[in-house]
């Protein structure tokens, strides 16, 4: 079965409909597609958040993502993966990342998507800076990495 994977890093809003279509139309023999979308959170914790800026290390990011995708496709027999990640300025609620996987059964597709997200969060060279408006003043904060994200690699 032919295997496809695609990595998109873009400073334009992610077109979730087009990305989904891409996953659904190239499924081949797979019986299960899984899609994960991560958005800029809008919650109590992020009160005053007006947006965020994402930067990355061009070249290194793509090759790290390619390694992660290759591993996931081999391990779970996945025949198609699409990963799209935003850079540039994002507003609250906007999608940051899209991961779509197509495998023979749902278990493989779910696990491959989780594996890709866990490794992407811990390895891929992206950095987030959050922008807040607090009492009329703008505050910019680089997001710090979380131990819980690092711990999530242990199960793989």
């Amino acid at each position, binding site marked *: 079965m032919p295997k496809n994977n695609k990595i998109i890093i873009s400073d334009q809003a992610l077109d979730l409909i087009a990305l989904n279509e891409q996953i659904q139309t190239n499924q081949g023999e797979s019986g299960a597609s899984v899609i994960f979308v*991560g958005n800029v959170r809008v919650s109590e914790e992020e009160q005053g958040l007006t947006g965020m800026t994402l930067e*990355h*290390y061009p070249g*290194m990011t793509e090759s790290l993502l390619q390694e992660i995708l290759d591993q996931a496709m081999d391990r779970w027999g996945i025949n198609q993966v699409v990963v799209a990640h935003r850079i540039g300025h994002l507003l609250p609620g906007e999608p940051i990342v899209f991961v779509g996987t197509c495998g023979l059964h749902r278990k493989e597709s779910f696990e491959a998507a989780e594996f890709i997200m866990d490794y992407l969060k811990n390895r*891929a060279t*992206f*950095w987030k800076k959050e922008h807040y408006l607090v009492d009329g003043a703008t505050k910019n904060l680089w*997001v710090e990495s979380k131990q819980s994200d690092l711990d999530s690699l242990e199960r793989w």
Partner: protein
Amino acid sequence: MMQIKVVFFASFKEVLGVSEIQQALEEGACINDLCKCLSDRGEQWQDIFDTPSRTVKVACNQQMAEISTVLQNGDEVAFFPPVTGG
């Protein structure tokens, strides 16, 4: 002498006020030697490079590297904080 391209990302780029420099180093130098040179450039540089903590990540030619990695002329070395994508 070797010429090394050194690039910085995220908070490091912001604190140092520069995204890329060229650094001359003796043949056979490793990333630790590069850190010593960078540390001499000023207070902000010293904070990051004097005794680089675990939160200082380093890549050589776009592959994750160690402080002991030996450099070659023309290498690209990147310093950055832990990644926070996704």
